[in-house]
Structures are given as C-alpha cells and as structure tokens.
C-alpha cells in the first residue's frame, strides 16, 4: 500500500501547477469556433479565390469572418484545409 506523508502529498499537489487561465479558455472555446469554421471550410471548397486568401493569411481571414484567431482555432482550420 502506498504511504502518503504530508510532505509527499504537498509535492504531488505542486507537480500539477495551475495553467494560465487564457490557455484553458481558448481550448474550451474550440467547439464553438468549430461551427463557424465549418462554413468557412465549405466556402473555401467552393471558392478558390477565398481559399487562396485564407491560406495566405489565416489569422486575418478569420478576423474578417468574425472569428477570434486563437492558436487552436488557427491550427484546427489549417489542418482541415490541408485535408
């Protein structure tokens, strides 16, 4: 049986420090952004000029579509466009 003295428990609590809140929030918002990305990806499939503009500057294109270009959103969109 594992023995836990208080010093050990304290060390284990310290092993998982808090994550900057903005990071967690950005990851949590990914599903919301996904719905908006679906329509962007569909439009890119239909419209070659839009697709080129998107690929040239994903962040600006997302902003123009009203989507906050957080790191996970940009990464997710890039992968979908590459598929």
């Amino acid at each position, binding site marked *: *049986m594992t023995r836990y003295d208080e010093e050990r428990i*304290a060390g284990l609590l310290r*092993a998982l*420090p808090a994550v900057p809140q903005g990071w967690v929030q950005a*990851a949590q918002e990914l599903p919301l952004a996904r719905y908006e990305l679906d329509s962007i990806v569909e439009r890119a499939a239909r419209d070659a000029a839009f697709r080129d503009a998107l690929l040239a500057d994903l962040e600006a294109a997302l902003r123009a579509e009203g989507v906050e270009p957080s790191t996970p959103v940009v990464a997710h969109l890039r992968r979908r466009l590459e598929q």
Partner: protein
Amino acid sequence: MAVTPDAELVARCREGDAEAWHELVDRFSRYVFAIVGQGYGLRGDDAEDVFQEVFSRVFERLDTLRSDDAVRPWIAQLARRCAVDRLRSASRELPVEDVPEERYEETIALLDEAMAVREALAELTPECAEILDRFFARDESYRTIGEALDLPAGTIASRISRCLAKLRERLEGRNRSSDPSSVRVT
C-alpha cells in the same frame, strides 16, 4: 463531491456536449501543461502552442479513441508527440535520441500519481480543495489566500494542515479499498 468518470465525460464530449468538453479541458489541462513543461522543458509561447495543439487534436480525434477509460494515457501520448515535434522543429539538428524519453517516463509516473491526488482533492469540501490548491499549486502566500477567501491570515496555516490531513485520510482510504490484501475473506 461526485466526480464524473473519465469514460462518461468522453462519451458526452463525443455527443457534442459543450459542458463536458469544458470539464475535460479543465480536468486534463494541468496534466498536459506539466508534461509539456516538466517532461520536455518547453516554456512560454512554445509551451502554449503545444498545449493548444494537444487539445485541438484531442477534440478532433476523440472518435478514434479505442477505450474511453484510457483517455488519460491517450492524452499523454498526444502531448508527448506534440512536444517532440516542437522540439524537433525548433532544432533541426536535434537527434531523435536526444529527445528526453527517459525523463518523460519518470514525469508521467509522477503526474499520474499527482492526478490521483487531485481526484481525491476534488472529493474534499470546496473550501479545503481551494485552500490546498491555492497554497501548493498556485504558490499563493497566506496573505493572498486570506484576502481572497476573506479569512484571517493567522488561521490559514492551521486550515491547510487540517485539509492536508483530510486529503491524506482520503488517499489512504482509497489505497486500502484498492489493495487486494486489505480484503477480508470471511
């Protein structure tokens, strides 16, 4: 406080339950952060990019997870791959064998145990969980904790000690119930 089992949380995420996704990110965010930082030494923007990449892949690939109970090791593997990719792209000359795999195994063993402690922490009262989290994981001073929780700073040390003792009881109770040698045959 009852904690949703990992498998149930994963099943709900797969059905598109946004609340479940929030909870999943909350549950594993420290784990991923620690793997990336402690296991692979990534900091700042590199650490943030890898952190986001991991959750982005979790979100996209949840359908490919073979066993919902195995979400934690699966996330650990994704974090490992993303961190290694980042290290390699940051230094094209870095040979594969220089990627700190041994440190990864040690880190995962430690973090798995730390996750068990956090699960036990979630079963304490919210007040106890918060004070222990603030002191140990957020590294806040007695004064900061006192101000945040509206408690006299002089009482913080004794509360931490009491809550730590409760957490220890909880952990050792879990251990006893999972230890086959503790089962009495009558």
